[in-house]
């Protein structure tokens, strides 16, 4: 017996050392830096002197220990995208830890209990946009039963896609909220009336504005450059010290570290085989191209057909304006033809058909899901041909307009595009049958005009955490009732995507959901903590498109006051934005300044003449937006005006009310409503009984850089303007004002 015990103890000790935890330790120094991607030196953030951040590699079974040294002047954090870990290691400031203060050091430590391609990024502010992104690769154990020979043993390299903009991301965020369409001008996507007439789409543009829509693009931000592993063009001549030659297969572990761009991935050397998604193996599927959503990861295998040629692997932004390449192989570079520009007016026409007057979307019975139907296909010349399809009603009686396949890219041509219905897990992913199921439904909602993005028309600051019992299965059905696609990301778990593959439903942690699609996902909430669930488009996340699942009763040692912390998190995604513009004109100064957030707006308008004769007027309004489309805004206001014998002698308004005083100070109550054709109707009642109604519209897109506007009200005042946009901050404006006459000026815009 004693011998037996000794042998057992020896065996136990031996086995412990066999399975000894390897601690993989990384020291990360986060520092401000200057980069020159766009010519001029611009501020960015580098870790250990590099952009992207260094690739962190682990093997399943290791313990990860990552020490973050914050050498910035601002706080920071690091989130491990798609990694299963205890909640306090998740890296979300105010939700799972306090922000890492400037000068401080913070250690993340957790066991690695999975494998696959993942990535990591800052979860503080907009730091993700300026360099804080990197690959996080977890290799399978050498004795892993799921090891796939011919796939998991291929030469492999990690690839992270990202964007660079010369503009300060805070400024981009601000401009998105003030509907500054400078990005559209740079992308040549303004879709103005002049362009509409040129393309024969005048009626389309008119209908679009009648339905109160602004010109829409697939992405809102203009980027100066696209980077793959930090460079625009890279040569991949060898992997692991071996030169690449004909017949070789290379596995690319691709993460989309972009803040807001989707990328089309294509390869000049032939087909692409998808072998994993979001860090989970999938049965290999061969495609010609795929689109990778913000924050998704895909493992793909490409083959080198010939010697002497390096084949272009091209990543193109969804809006087709920018791309980056990786040349795989040795020799002369074989290029792939770039994706042609989108047919914007075809897209506008499609949206007109889909949008009802009240702002809801109408899928016309198509029941879309899993990216199988891409409405945007009407805009892709490579699938639906160039130019406007001629209406050949005489030729045939069958009407293509009702063909259910008209948005199915794979049926319309010979290019095979990946969609979620094609993904299948190699193993059973079913959840335990005895776990109780809790159903949730979320509708993704949004408003391009005010750039408010929400779920069920509520931003994070308007909701509480969602309590979930540990051990429950959450089954979430998501319907996208907005006009943009959103990559919805769940922290801490993989979820099954219910896509018809039954037990072999694939596992993901980011679900790209297109307008009008309905998708269902489910996961077992078996790890306690506060888990973030949000749209991964950075600017949407910062606008409130988030929720928190609070699983179990988790006491986070980093957050002693959870309530206070949650309030800070809520505030972070509903920050107020400031915008102002002023026209320095020959007949006076006209301008406006506004402070606004998701629901409130504090704005001041002024019209200051150069003399008492022309008069001065300043109006202030504090309003609250009501409703899903935010067309209705009741407000309280204050008006101050001074005039001594103006050009315009009308002191009597349309209602016969008179104002005899030179100086007038009055409080008001009223509302503003957006009418079709985007005309703002404003009704105001002053404390002295005077009533004023007005109609106004600014920024009518006449041509790419020309904007028109007008204002008319019951005080018998009238204004018409024409503005030429020179750059994002100023333009040249001419206007006629009934009080102050005709003028020409320089219009400055912030």
């Amino acid at each position, binding site marked *: 017996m004693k011998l037996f015990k000794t042998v057992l103890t020896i065996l136990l000790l031996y086995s412990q050392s066999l399975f000894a935890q390897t601690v993989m330790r990384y020291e990360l120094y986060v520092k401000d830096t200057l980069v020159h991607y766009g010519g001029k030196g611009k501020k960015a953030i580098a870790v250990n002197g590099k952009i992207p951040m260094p690739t962190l590699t682990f093997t399943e079974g290791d313990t990860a220990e990552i020490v973050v040294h914050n050498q910035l002047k601002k706080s920071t954090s690091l989130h491990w995208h798609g990694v299963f870990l205890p909640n306090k290691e998740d890296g979300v400031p105010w939700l799972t830890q306090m922000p890492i203060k400037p000068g401080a050091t913070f250690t993340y430590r957790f066991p690695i209990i999975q494998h696959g391609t993942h990535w990591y990024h800052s979860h503080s502010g907009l730091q993700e946009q300026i360099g804080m992104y990197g690959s996080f690769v977890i290799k399978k154990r050498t004795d892993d039963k799921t090891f796939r020979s011919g796939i998991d043993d291929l030469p492999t390299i990690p690839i992270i896609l990202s964007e660079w903009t010369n503009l300060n991301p805070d400024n981009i965020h601000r401009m998105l909220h003030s509907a500054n369409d400078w990005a559209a001008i740079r992308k040549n996507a303004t879709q103005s009336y002049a362009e509409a007439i040129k393309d024969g789409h005048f009626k389309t543009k008119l209908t679009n504005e009648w339905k109160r829509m602004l010109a829409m693009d697939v992405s809102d931000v203009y980027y100066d450059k696209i980077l793959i592993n930090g460079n625009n063009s890279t040569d991949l001549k060898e992997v692991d010290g071996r030169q690449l030659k*004909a017949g070789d297969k290379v596995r690319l572990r691709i993460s989309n570290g972009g803040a807001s761009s989707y990328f089309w991935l294509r390869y*000049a050397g*032939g087909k692409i085989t998808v072998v994993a998604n979001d860090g989970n193996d999938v049965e290999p599927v061969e495609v010609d191209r795929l689109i990778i959503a913000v924050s998704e990861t895909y493992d793909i295998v490409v083959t080198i057909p010939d010697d002497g040629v390096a084949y272009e692997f091209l990543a193109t932004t969804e809006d087709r304006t920018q791309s980056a390449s990786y040349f795989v192989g040795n020799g002369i570079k074989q290029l792939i033809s770039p994706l042609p520009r989108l047919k914007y007016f075809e897209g506008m026409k499609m949206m007109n058909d889909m949008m009802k007057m009240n702002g809801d979307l109408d899928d016309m019975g198509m029941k879309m899901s899993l990216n199988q139907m891409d409405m945007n296909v009407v805009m892709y010349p490579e699938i639906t041909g160039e130019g406007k*399809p001629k209406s050949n009603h005489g030729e045939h009686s*069958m009407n293509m307009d009702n063909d259910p396949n008209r948005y199915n890219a794979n049926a319309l*041509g010979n290019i095979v595009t990946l969609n979620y219905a094609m993904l299948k897990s190699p193993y059973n992913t079913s959840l335990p049958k005895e776990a109780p199921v809790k159903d949730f439904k979320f509708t993704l909602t949004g408003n391009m005009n005010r750039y408010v993005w929400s779920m069920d028309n509520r931003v994070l600051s308007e909701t509480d955490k969602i309590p979930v019992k540990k051990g429950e299965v959450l089954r979430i059905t998501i319907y996208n009732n907005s006009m943009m696609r959103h990559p919805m990301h769940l922290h801490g778990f993989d979820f099954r995507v219910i896509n018809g593959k039954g037990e072999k439903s694939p596992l993901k942690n980011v679900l790209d959901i297109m307008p009008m699609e309905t998708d269902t996902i489910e996961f077992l909430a078996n790890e306690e903590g506060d888990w973030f669930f949000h749209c991964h488009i950075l600017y949407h996340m910062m606008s409130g498109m988030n929720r928190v699942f609070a699983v179990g009763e988790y006491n986070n040692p980093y957050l002693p006051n959870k309530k206070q912390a949650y309030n800070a998190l809520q505030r972070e995604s509903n920050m107020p934005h400031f915008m102002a513009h002023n026209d320095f004109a020959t007949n006076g100064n006209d301008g406006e300044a506004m402070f606004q957030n998701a629901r409130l707006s504090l704005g001041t308008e002024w019209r200051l003449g150069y003399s008492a004769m022309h008069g001065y007027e300043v109006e202030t309004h504090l309003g609250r937006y009501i409703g899903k489309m935010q067309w209705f805004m009741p407000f309280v206001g204050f008006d101050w005006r001074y005039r001594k014998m103006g050009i315009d002698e009308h002191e009597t308004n349309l209602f016969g009310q008179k104002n005899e005083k030179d100086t007038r100070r009055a409080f008001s109550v009223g509302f503003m409503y957006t009418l079709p054709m985007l005309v703002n109707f404003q009704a105001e009642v002053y404390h002295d009984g005077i009533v004023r109604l007005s109609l106004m519209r600014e920024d009518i897109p006449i041509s790419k850089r020309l904007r028109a506007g007008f204002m008319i009200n019951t005080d018998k005042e009238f204004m018409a303007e024409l503005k030429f946009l020179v750059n994002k901050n100023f333009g040249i404006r001419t206007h006629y004002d009934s009080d102050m006459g005709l003028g020409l000026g*320089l219009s400055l815009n912030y």
Partner: protein
Amino acid sequence: MKLVSKTLLLFVALLSSKNTLAQIKNSKTETVKIYGNCSMCKSRIEKAGSLKNTATVIWDKDSKKASLRYDGSKTNRDEILKRIALAGHDNEKFLAPDDVYAQLPECCLYNRELKLTSKSNVAAGVRREHSSQSEMKQNSQATIKSQQLNAVIESYFSVKDALVKSDANASMQKAIVLVKAIRAVEMTKLSAEEHTTWMKVRNELEQNAQRIAGSKDVAKQRTTFALLSENMYDLAKSSKQDKPIYYQHCPMYNNGKGAHWLSKESAVKNPYYGSKMMTCGSTKETLD
């Protein structure tokens, strides 16, 4: 007020003056070989390569050499060569995308020496657009008699593919290639069966191909294509091919009278309607 107008005028003047200084500074000059044939190629190469204030490209069509003059601080040789390759012209650094090359006008289809023609069996999905010239060169070594008609059938498929994409320009180009292929067939080298059919259809085939080659209107091309396809059917039936050919039919075309076409793939891709009704049709017969 007057000050404002003065400042405004000055400002506007300043803006316009920026554009008048169009010189290339820090200029570097290099000579590089670029593949092309004719004067159309010259204008295409120069237009693609040159960039205002940054680079100028001048190409000589006899020596096939281009002289590049560019601002070394703004760009480099590779960027210029990449633009030229994307327009369809191979050079020592970059190969033009296959589909862009294939869409060049016939006179511009230079010999793609730089592109290796080794057929690698590993790349199962590699799609290559062969100009009919290189195809015929490959086939001339074959001893099977039916190879003569291969060029004709292959170029017919290219016309069909172009019509599937509703690309009138491309189908016109491919029809020109088809005409050439038809004219290059030596009747004496055909098998007995092929010979008989060839005598029957040759004139009509050439006429129809020429009609398509002479038209930029996709609707007119398609009308002729229906007749062309009937000729091709007879031809394909008489000739032994190593891969099956599918004889497919669309019932709606031509006011319900219907039309046929031949295809290499069994999946129905309609050349009469293109993307407007891509999957309309069915396979009536398989020839192999």
